[in-house]
């Protein structure tokens, strides 16, 4: 019971709720974080001896709050803190607080904390860094490693983000239904950003950033428990689970990306897929579709196909058409074209993406897909040009390697013909 791994997991799990409640109390992010930190130190001293409290989250909030108050009283006259065992009626106060925490304002506490991290003034990278630091409690060192920057640079980035947030008008009033929905949407987008930061990493960075995907899933689950009737939050959670399930199969030993069709599906994590499928099934039962649900439904069709040739591309085409209507974007159309090429052939797919050239001309995936369609149509020279442009635009070594494989195959086929 006093196993340090257990205490660590408990502190990590309690963190979002505890920091959120302390933030409501202190109305200052730094003060809330410090109070939580203080409470954690006391937990590490106390719990191994006395056993864990009945409600660890409430204990941390209460002790964090008391410690901060003591600290402010103590300023100027160094006086020893009373040990926790002397804090009167801690048990009763804990129960009392836990009961109040079950009230609805508690979920608004957590939503507020998450919402503060996606302040519209903050660029995406700062939102992610702030969320990872404040909500997930990752160390500056861990975050710096994930973003491939120095610890000092990351420290500065987070400090700046906090200053920006503190200068803003943090929303402490209880939100109305419309506001709450808006906050929820902003927070969902931020969580998906955190996920994609981890998911898009490759090679050495993939290892350092892999836990960002786990973290995003954990945050989504937390949000879903607080807002259990929101199909879009179910969809977001399902989407991330279904995508992350493929992680063990996405890169080869050299760190090069492996396309969905070529992945060893036996490596996909079954437990995550099962949970993702259960969640998207549950979300769609509510008949209130949204972009996350549609994307999760697409991921579910891939997950359900035991072999690539079992994939229901016609249904995927339909789902992308739905997504195009909900969220028109050339990138969605480009993705749809891949499904179209499987259902109606590369000619239809090429016709679908040609009009996107002005907007996607600088996009790696556009030229990669175009090259593949041209290759399918037996136009190798044009395909080669498209692949060359894709390589020039590749953002990661894995992307470039993947395209190079196409080019190598073209060269081999060419050589065979000569």
């Amino acid at each position, binding site marked *: 019971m006093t196993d340090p*791994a*257990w205490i660590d997991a408990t502190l*990590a*799990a309690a963190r979002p709720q505890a920091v959120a409640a302390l933030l409501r109390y202190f109305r200052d992010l730094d003060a809330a974080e410090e109070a939580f930190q203080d409470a954690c130190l006391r937990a590490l001293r106390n719990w191994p001896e006395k056993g864990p409290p009945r409600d*660890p989250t409430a204990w941390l909030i209460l002790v964090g709050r008391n410690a901060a108050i003591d600290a402010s009283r103590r300023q100027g006259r160094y006086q020893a803190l009373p040990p926790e065992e002397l804090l009167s009626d801690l048990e009763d106060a804990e129960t009392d607080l836990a009961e109040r925490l*079950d009230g609805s304002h508690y979920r608004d506490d957590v939503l507020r904390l998450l919402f503060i991290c996606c302040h519209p003034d903050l660029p995406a990278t700062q939102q992610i860094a702030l969320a990872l630091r404040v909500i997930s409690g990752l160390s500056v060192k861990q975050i710096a490693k994930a973003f491939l920057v120095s610890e000092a640079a990351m420290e500065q980035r987070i400090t700046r983000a906090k200053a920006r947030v503190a200068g803003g008008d943090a929303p402490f009033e209880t939100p109305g239904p419309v506001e709450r929905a808006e906050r929820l949407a902003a927070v969902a987008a931020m969580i998906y950003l955190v996920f994609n930061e981890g998911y898009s990493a490759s090679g050495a960075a993939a290892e350092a950033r892999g836990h960002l995907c786990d973290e995003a899933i954990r945050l989504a*689950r937390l949000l879903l428990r607080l807002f259990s009737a929101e199909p879009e939050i179910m969809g977001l959670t399902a989407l991330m689970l279904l995508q992350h399930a493929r992680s063990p199969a996405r890169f080869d030993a050299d760190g090069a990306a492996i396309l969905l069709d070529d992945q060893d599906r036996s490596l996909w994590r079954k437990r995550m897929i099962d949970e993702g499928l*259960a969640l998207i099934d549950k979300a769609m039962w509510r008949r209130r579709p949204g972009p996350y649900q549609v994307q999760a439904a697409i991921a579910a069709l891939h997950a359900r196909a035991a072999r690539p040739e079992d994939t229901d591309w016609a249904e995927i085409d339909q789902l992308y058409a739905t997504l195009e209507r909900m969220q028109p974007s050339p990138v969605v159309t480009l993705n749809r074209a891949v499904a179209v090429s499987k259902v109606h052939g590369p000619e239809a797919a090429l016709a679908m993406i040609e009009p996107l050239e002005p907007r996607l001309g600088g996009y790696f995936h556009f030229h990669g897909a175009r090259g593949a369609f041209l290759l399918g149509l037996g136009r190798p020279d044009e395909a080669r040009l498209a692949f060359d442009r894709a390589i020039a635009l590749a953002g990661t070594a894995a992307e470039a390697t993947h395209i190079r494989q196409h080019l190598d195959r073209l060269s081999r086929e060419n050589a065979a013909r000569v």
Partner: protein
Amino acid sequence: MLYAILCYHDEDTVCAWSQEHNDKVMADLGAVEDKLAKAGRLGPVARLMPTTAATTLRKDREPPLVLDGPFAETKEQLLGFFVIECVDLDQAIETAKELGVANPGGSYEIRPMMLMRPSALPA
């Protein structure tokens, strides 16, 4: 007598487990289960998905009401169960303690079973 050992734990904590920790807990539990199976005392074992995947049917009204989430909002959630043959409560508590060493944290509710139909599903 058959006993159900119902596993309650804070699912936030369980979801915060690292993959390695999760694998270790499952392996440690597996070792205890193997021992029980060899002794012919192990019945069905289940691990449940998080309560976020749960749906509740309130059937005390007509038509029944379908709600998202678990039946009750509690600090610790029902996350799985074991069915185990024990001679008496004393042995049931001993067995639960052994399982608890493999998976510390949370609580086990030990409930004697009234009925168990054999499963027609493949294991």
